[in-house]
């Protein structure tokens, strides 16, 4: 017995690279099921046909970086029953939050011939800094399996199975040999939230922290291990300041190391 009415989905873009919303299009084998189960009412990347709100579920990609964004997100919230922010930009400010450590006017002056035309905010901030968010789905980019899980959880009125523990749990469950222990490769996995399926360690790379800080992230302890492996404080600052540079635990870890470096 199918549902009486297909739930309406909207996908919104703010400051971002589109990679996360493309994850939805990348659900090749599941796409028919998605289209069958959901009325994709507003998804400009997929179709020009747009149905007006309200929407049962809004997926919001991107961070807030302009005054216009800061207003538009309130309209999106009003139109949405559930609002799920997706990706490192929407949940932590993204890689563009590196501006938060500098004066953004220096960047605009460097890049644009007429910087006075650029209307941008001093900081790149996550969606939850502006409106209440029902769920934050991490990742740069998000995992399509987790995206389907979250969508299906909201549509079936259950809690999503999206854990907040470490990437190490995924390594061990899949039997990937720990690169940190077995080959002294620096890895951010012990402070990073699971979700990618331990992708990098499975290919003999250390984790880059794409899914942001895990619950109870103990960056001090991991820093010591990295430094014992020969990493400098500067290496660690660079490692924390990537896709999730402004996620609090990573931001604070890098700030602490920075302060140590320049007392």
């Amino acid at each position, binding site marked *: 017995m199918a549902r009486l009415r297909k739930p309406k989905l909207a996908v919104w873009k703010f400051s971002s690279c589109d990679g996360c919303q493309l994850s939805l299009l990348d659900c090749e084998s599941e796409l028919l099921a998605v289209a069958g189960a959901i009325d994709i009412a507003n998804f400009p990347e997929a179709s020009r046909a747009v149905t007006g709100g309200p929407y049962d579920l809004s997926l919001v990609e991107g961070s807030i970086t302009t005054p216009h964004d800061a207003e538009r997100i309130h309209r999106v919230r009003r139109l949405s029953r559930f609002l799920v922010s997706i990706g490192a930009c929407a949940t932590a400010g993204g890689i563009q939050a590196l501006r938060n450590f500098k004066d953004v006017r220096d960047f605009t002056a460097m890049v644009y011939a007429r910087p006075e035309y650029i209307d941008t905010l001093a900081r790149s901030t996550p969606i939850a800094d502006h409106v209440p968010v029902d769920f934050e789905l991490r990742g740069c980019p998000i995992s399509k399996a987790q995206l389907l899980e979250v969508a299906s959880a909201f549509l079936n009125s259950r809690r999503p199975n999206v854990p907040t*523990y470490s990437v*190490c749990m995924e390594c061990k469950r899949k039997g990937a040999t720990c690169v940190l222990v077995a080959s002294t490769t620096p890895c951010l*996995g*012990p402070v990073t939230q699971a979700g990618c399926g331990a992708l990098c360690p499975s290919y003999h790379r250390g984790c880059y922290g794409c899914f942001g800080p895990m619950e*109870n992230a103990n960056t001090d302890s*991991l820093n010591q*291990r990295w430094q014992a492996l020969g990493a400098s404080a500067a290496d660690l600052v660079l490692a924390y300041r990537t896709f999730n540079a402004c996620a609090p635990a990573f931001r604070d870890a890098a700030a602490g190391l920075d302060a140590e470096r320049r007392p």
Partner: protein
Amino acid sequence: MAVDVRVIERSDLSALLVALREAGYEVIAPVPGDGSIDYDVVTGDGERPAGFSDEQGPGAYRLKMCDHELLFDFAAGASSWKKFLFPPSLTLFSAQRRQRSFEVLPGTADPPPRAFLGVRACDLAAIDIQDKIFLGGAFVDPSYRQRRKDVFIVAVNCTRAGGSCFCASMGTGPRVSAGFDLALTELKIGERHCFTAEPGSDRGEAVLARLGSPPAGPALEAEARSASARCAASMARQMVTDGLRDLLVQNQEHPRWRDVASRCLACANCTLVCPTCFCATVQDVTDLAGERAERIRVWDSCFSAEHSHLHGASVRRTTRSRYRQWMTHKLAYWIDQFGTSGCVGCGRCITWCPAGIDITEEAAAIRAGGATTTAPNSGG
């Protein structure tokens, strides 16, 4: 009854594997996996990779090649037999919507009968502990029972202690005493490379009879025993178990918990590599259309917040409380619950801890004293 210990020459070991396969078992044996010893199904002629060894210590593991050509010169890797008996992920059942009702469909299929080749004494003790947990109480775990019931165990006595091992102090190794079908000891005496083979069951006896292995004789038997004894004597690490349960129970507020929490990453590696840790969580997943649902059991850990989530919040919010929960359960409350320590001294949690935390050192630090805010302890 004196057991009739036989000898299997190195060149005949593959015949043992083939004989087990012919007896209807899927044979699983150690393999030099991706940088660490793992276990995999034996195919082909049963020949085993030779010359692998390892170096281990807190937070460090190196798989290495030696020219000694031994087949079992390594200690435990990150994997354990747990993954076959209590898989990291198991679909318990699924449900398909049918009109106004639903149909329940079976979950992950049960594997064929298996033979585990190369079970070390610590791991055999761990299997015995998990048997108590999953089969011993009022509620039997049906998937564990299915996976466990026909397992043919070829144990291998350790002759070299790994850098993290402390089985001798836990009383579980390095030599097996019960619970196996066959127990091998690898020996290299001059040019001779062979295995003593001790049957531990009628099934084991039958396999040896089929191989036609000759008696080992007193000299080889004595050499096998002394190889194990030398291994035990060389084990650098140890856990002092005298009064350990009471010591931990009485030191819940010991300052060492805070100290270890400053190093612990709460990453859960220790619990997932531990061959006795048995925590799992059950996840219900549904498809988008609401037509199909699955119930999946996956390994969980007391180091995750979700694990202690009760009535709307986690009751163990700090890493201090999680490490303390793990260690006191393992070494103290396990005894109350299952009549045995939860630790067999395999050393996996020490090697695979990215922070290099050593459970024996933590226990020793608590024994060494320091401020307590609960009943003073007797020092064990």
